[in-house]
């Protein structure tokens, strides 16, 4: 090892505090990228692998009832690769020891065999034996939630008839990776299940002998989904087909795609911000560290070391720090991705999930950090080596200070010596002070972005569950029901208020854009399910015409006054035209609303409803649940408190977990920057401070100068940090908007306070470290070093 390399290692050891702080800044930036990218990569591959290995279909057609004999003919349509007819039925379940209503769906399997599409991934047990009508496979999440194992039994009500089913196995399937009920946003594993039974048994129970009500199709490579979809629609129209659906219309796939889109947005925006900030800070800090090496650098130059050799030497110093930070960031990122992946595996039931850190991400992180460090180093080394060595070894000329407004103003005259030294120093080096302020402000901005994310999600959920969804129970009927059923509900035990609604699946069209959703008909001003704008003001529905969530209107590129085409996907499948009468800025979901009477009229029906919202007396909840469970028309009983708890858990464990990790990283960046800043200030001013000590200043008087500078820079950085934080939050907010959520850009005083408190806390810790260092200041040594 050459002597220069030995010097390098010793320098690294001497600068260990600062090196570690810089490495922490780099590690934070790198970790965000590795975490986001690795999680995204694992989820994406888990999805595509599961889809491919278990044959997830491309097209889905629901029909009322079509003869199995039709399949041979449909199979010959152009573009069809595989086709699987099956029976799908709604089911209500009772689990011993669990009182709440359980909903579910039962899907048919070819007797005793794996289906050709949507094959099951058996976690335990086996498929039902051929010919057995009393055996079923159940979804794994439901089995876990109730501690069910193969051999256990369930009571099932299929089409009004009660049967006892024995579990032959427990399975996952590519079509229920995300196992939420169709009307729910989030899974409730205790209250929703998917079951699989032999086809003959299910068909018998559901009155579907020799027939199917759902057709699954995979496409040949290169086949056009829209063309085939149209042909299938035509062929199946008279069997009650509701329109060919693609994967995008499937709840599990749709939600997973949204989650992946969210992850992609996160992977694009957060690491970019973090890496850019840490690269900037790295550049500044490395530059300043090199500048404190002015004398040894001049010395080496005096001995005849070439500029290139010196640049390489200091480049290597920076390189080693970068490498340390990078390795730390990759390791932590990979570790955290595994942890987060585990949480996602709770919500997304893949067959398998494998983690690997993409090589490009590692290379990118190393490249960004390396280039930033080398730029900072190169710039500073270049400036240092350009100076003739004799000049570098002379003490620098006294810096030019002039009388400024500071001396002339009353404020200036009132200041003590220490304050004047601090202020003059900052005013004398506006660029250096500016960079310090900018560095701390950036870390404050990151902290604020984290606080914003934590606060905004909470606020969104509060609004959704305190103000929008004010009902306790959402009842869904198995079929369209006369509105007078509301009267019967009012007499159920503990029911305080009832509001009814009519929902119909539709495709909204404007020019060539379309969006599949449902049209919700309610009272003109619904009380139990309010329609709120972004400021939380309840909106009344327009007398005629439809009201859309603004996000949806923008997707359709429709404005108020435009005419929308609406294809009803149910019943008589009318095509309607309706004016877009109003917009509403809802934060969750995309809705299309109109008054229920108008909807009934448009559908050509009397006063009919699809469900009802109930406000109930919590003391009578159990009695009410039992009573509702007995009502024949009730297909679903949604408990809002459960839904809210579910969504909060989900948010806490996914988005907020990410946000917490990022807040921690922002905190470590803030600390790294402030610490380095203070250390460099200390190094630059050690001589001056030692002189003051020699002249008889006390330690605390000298400390006031140093701490005064840190405090002033921090104070200047905070308001700038708020501005940067607003910008970062807006960027993040933009990236996170999707069909499911649009987190409002609400910056609470808490977010501002959090950012300020974060940098102040970091500054205080640093202040303590600096005071300890000041105690060890070697007065004689420092003064002797230079004339």
């Amino acid at each position: 090892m050459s002597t220069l390399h030995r010097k390098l290692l010793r320098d690294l050891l001497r600068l260990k505090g600062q090196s570690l702080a810089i490495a922490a800044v780099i590690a934070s930036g790198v970790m965000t990228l590795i975490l986001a990218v690795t999680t995204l990569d694992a989820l994406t591959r888990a999805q595509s692998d599961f889809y491919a290995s278990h044959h997830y279909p491309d097209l889905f057609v629901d029909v009322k009832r079509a003869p199995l004999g039709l399949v041979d003919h449909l199979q010959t349509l152009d573009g069809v690769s595989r086709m699987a007819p099956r029976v799908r039925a709604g089911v209500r379940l009772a689990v011993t020891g669990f009182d709440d209503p359980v909903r579910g769906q039962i899907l048919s399997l070819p007797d005793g065999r794996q289906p050709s599409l949507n094959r099951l991934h058996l976690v335990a047990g086996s498929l039902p034996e051929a010919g057995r009508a009393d055996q079923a496979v159940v979804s794994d999440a439901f089995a876990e939630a109730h501690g069910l194992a193969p051999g256990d039994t369930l009571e099932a009500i299929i089409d009004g008839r009660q049967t006892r089913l024995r579990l032959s196995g427990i399975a996952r399937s590519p079509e229920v990776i995300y196992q939420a009920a169709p009307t729910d946003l989030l899974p409730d594993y205790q209250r929703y299940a998917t079951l699989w039974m032999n086809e003959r048994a299910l068909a018998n129970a559901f009155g579907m002998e020799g027939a199917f009500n759902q057709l699954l199709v995979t496409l040949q490579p290169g086949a056009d989904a829209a063309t085939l979809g149209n042909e299938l629609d035509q062929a199946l129209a008279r069997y009650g087909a509701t329109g060919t659906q693609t994967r995008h219309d499937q709840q599990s796939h749709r939600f997973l795609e949204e989650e992946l889109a969210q992850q992609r947005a996160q992977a694009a925006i957060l690491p970019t911000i973090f890496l850019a900030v840490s690269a900037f800070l790295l550049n500044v800090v490395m530059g300043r560290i090199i500048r404190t090496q002015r004398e040894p650098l001049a010395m080496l130059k005096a001995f005849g070391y070439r500029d290139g050799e010196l640049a390489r030497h200091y480049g290597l110093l920076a390189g080693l720090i970068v490498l340390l930070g990078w390795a730390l960031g990759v390791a932590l990122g990979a570790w955290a991705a595994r942890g987060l992946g585990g949480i996602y595996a709770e919500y997304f039931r893949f067959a398998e999930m494998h983690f690997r850190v993409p090589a490009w991400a590692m290379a990118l992180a190393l490249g960004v950090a390396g280039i930033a460090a080398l730029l900072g180093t190169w710039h500073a080394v270049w400036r240092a080596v350009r100076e003739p060595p004799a000049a570098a070894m002379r003490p620098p000329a006294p810096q030019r200070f002039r009388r400024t407004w500071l001396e002339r103003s009353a404020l200036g005259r009132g200041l003590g010596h220490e304050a004047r030294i601090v202020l003059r120093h900052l005013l004398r080096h506006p660029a250096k002070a500016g960079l310090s302020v900018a560095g701390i402000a950036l870390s404050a901005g990151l902290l604020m972005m984290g606080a914003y994310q934590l606060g905004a999600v909470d606020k969104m959920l509060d609004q959704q569950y305190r103000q929008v969804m004010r009902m306790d129970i959402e009842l869904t009927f198995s079929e369209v029901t006369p509105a007078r059923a509301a009267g019967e509900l009012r007499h159920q035990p503990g029911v305080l208020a009832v509001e009814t609604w009519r929902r119909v699946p539709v495709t909204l069209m404007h020019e060539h854009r379309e969006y599949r959703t449902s049209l919700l008909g309610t009272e003109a001003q619904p009380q139990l399910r309010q329609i709120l704008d972004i400021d939380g003001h309840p909106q009344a529905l327009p007398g005629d015409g439809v009201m859309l969530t603004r996000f949806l209107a923008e997707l359709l590129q429709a404005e108020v006054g435009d005419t929308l085409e609406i294809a009803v996907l149910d019943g008589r499948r009318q095509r309607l035209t309706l004016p877009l009468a109003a917009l509403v800025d809802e934060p969750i979901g995309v809705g299309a609303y109109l008054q229920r009477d108008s909807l009934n009229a448009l559908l050509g029906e009397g006063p009919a409803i699809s469900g009802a919202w109930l406000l109930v007396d919590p003391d009578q909840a159990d009695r009410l649940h039992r009573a509702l469970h007995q009502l024949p028309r009730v297909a679903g009983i949604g408990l809002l408190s459960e839904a809210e708890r579910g969504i909060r858990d989900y948010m806490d464990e996914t988005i907020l977990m990410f946000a917490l990790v990022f807040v921690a990283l922002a905190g470590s960046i803030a600390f790294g920057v402030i610490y380095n800043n203070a250390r460099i200030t200390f190094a630059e001013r050690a001589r001056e401070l030692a002189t003051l000590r020699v002249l008889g200043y006390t330690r605390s008087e000298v400390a006031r100068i140093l701490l005064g500078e840190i405090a002033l820079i921090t104070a200047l950085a905070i308001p700038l940090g708020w501005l940067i934080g607003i910008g970062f939050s807006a960027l993040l907010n933009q990236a996170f908007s999707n069909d499911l959520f649009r987190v409002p850009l609400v910056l609470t005083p808490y977010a501002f306070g959090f950012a300020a408190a974060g940098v102040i806390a970091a500054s205080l810790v640093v202040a303590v470290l600096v005071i300890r260092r000041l105690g060890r200041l070697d007065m004689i040594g420092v003064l002797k070093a230079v004339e």
Partner: protein
Amino acid sequence: MHDSAQAVFQTRGLKRFYQMGDVTIQALRGVDLELFSGELVVMLGASGSGKSTLLNIMGGLDSASEGSVHYIDHSRHTHELTHASQRQLTEFRRHHVGFVFQFYNLISSLTARENVAIVTDISRDPMTPEEALAMVGLEQRLDHFPSQLSGGEQQRVAIARAIAKRPEVLLCDEPTGALDFRTGIRVLEVLETLNRTTGTTLAIITHNEVIGEMADRVIRLRDGQVGDIHANTQRTPPGELRW
């Protein structure tokens, strides 16, 4: 001796101005002189007389504002330093001159041996660091860090570092300035022995008149110019100097 000897340095009309803050300092106002191969020259001058500036320019650490400096190496190759590029000056320092500074300027993170090695690493035909340190009597202190050495020992490490590459010229800026009398004499003895035994041209700048007695020639600088040049008929051994 210089009548027959070869000139190593030759300066003509050397001027140097500095901008120090708001003030322009004329450090050198036209210096003409020669240094000859193998001689020991002491340059005397009060603080501000320009002696350090002259030494820095001769050593390629600084550049003149006007005038010329020529260096003639042992193979009689002439180097024009005044218009040399930074790269050429670096090569000049690397291969031809050694420096000893008043404040030693050792690298605190390296041991005595390593402080010497940092120069021998880049030299063409160096001694080993151990040899160089033995020449200054520090063979017992090889692995000590600067903070573990006395001022005199630190200066001797600096001398070992300067001579280890076997330079043709050794330039010393107040080598005893930070040392007490006894230690200063010890350092001067090392320098004198070196000059006598290896024939290295030695230029010492100091404000201490007494040190002039050990030189072949004494050059006095006053106010940025050469005041007078005086040749000693006999060199006084450093051990006999008193101040």
